[in-house]
């Protein structure tokens, strides 16, 4: 048995076996989240793709790479979306440098 096996995404519904009411609620909510709304399905798929990279979920990356292509995005747009995720992750690391500088100032002469 290994982590992140390719076929595991299709087994996602098995998560409902021991808590079906929670799984039903989750999948119903999930479906509504990705329905066409104030944001289009295409825009939501691009957000999902970016978040998938930020949380480094291989299942989500597989699913939303296909999801983005099937809602009409191209690789240029998808690559820009994940740069947004990377920029926020990188920025969030860097902005903590302010805390570092404040702490250093507090303890330094």
């Amino acid at each position: 048995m290994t982590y992140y096996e390719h076929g595991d995404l299709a087994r996602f519904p098995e998560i409902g076996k021991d808590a079906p009411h929670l799984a039903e609620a989750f999948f119903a909510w999930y479906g509504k989240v990705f329905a066409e709304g104030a944001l289009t399905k295409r825009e939501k798929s691009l957000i999902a793709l970016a978040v998938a990279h930020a949380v480094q979920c291989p299942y989500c990356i597989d699913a939303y790479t296909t999801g983005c292509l099937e809602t009409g995005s191209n690789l240029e747009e998808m690559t820009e979306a994940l740069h947004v995720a990377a920029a926020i992750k990188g920025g969030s690391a860097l902005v903590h440098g302010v805390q570092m500088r404040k702490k250093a100032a507090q303890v330094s002469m």
Partner: protein
Amino acid sequence: MDVPFPSAARVAPPAPRHRRLSPEAQLAELARLSAPTFQAHLARAGLPALTAGPLRVLQVNVGKLCNQTCRHCHVDAGPHQVEANMAWPTFAACLEVARAARPPVVDLTGGAPELNAHFRRFVHEVKALGVREVIDRCNLTVLLLPGQRDLVSFLAEHGVHVVASLPAVNAAQTDAQRGDGVFERSLEGLRRLNAAGYGQPGTGLELTLMSNPSGAFLPPPQAAQEARFKALLRERHGIVFTRLVELTNMPIHRFLEFLLERDDLERYVGALSQAFNPAAVGGLMCRDTLSVGWDGRLYDCDFNQMLELEVAPAEARTIFTWRDELLAERPIRVARHCLGCTAGQGSSCAGATSASSV
């Protein structure tokens, strides 16, 4: 055999070197898959087996000669296909059937149909019959060939509806599917069509764009993608068109071989099966189309033609032996490739067959 524009070979990429499967071998590949059969999907949805309704579209595949060698092509068309092209007696038989059956639409496909030496004569004569709509399925780059400089004006003068292939509004995806430099040449083809009035309001000259996914995934929702294509082509390139239609890639010939090379056939057909949409069945093109092969043989659709699944009635299997009373209400020949037409929003030569993918 007529090879009107041998120079076509110089503007297209070389034919790919993948293995070529016979129609019989392709059907065998589809038959061994684990996805439920097309018939099983219909039965599970409580739908009857498919039968043909009244003839609406006489679709004439004039041959496999093309100046492009697209990676998704279900026809296996290309510059190398110099033999399999329709001769005039077969065109003449198509005219006779059009005269007798009065289909509202005559739809010319290929290959690049314009490269058949008899294309213009046939268009002229079929228009003279009073057929309401004549379609030319155009790859756009053919419009730029030296021997075709007057093609746009010919099409416009005859009021031909141009259905032009453009998978994406970017070069990377378009060229990956259709060959290096095809995107830029396609834009030039579209500009020439626009300049002749195609796609422009009030001219009556319809310019439909047809988009196939540039890979092994389903097409986007048609209405949303049309809006994006319209905005991007207008803003970036000053190009206008009438409508966009989406067509699912069919696991036949070159696209089947692409899937086999990547060991992805099982997954792709499984995805088509999972996306089976009963609401897409009613609008399937096989129900109102008769497809004619370059040699005059008859099929329920262009996909069945490439798999050599001839129409069911044995006494009416060619355009020369066409008999409406035998072909009307004929059972449609089906196999697993039909799942491509019922996946998601549905797929046909006229685009989506359902308002949504449920």
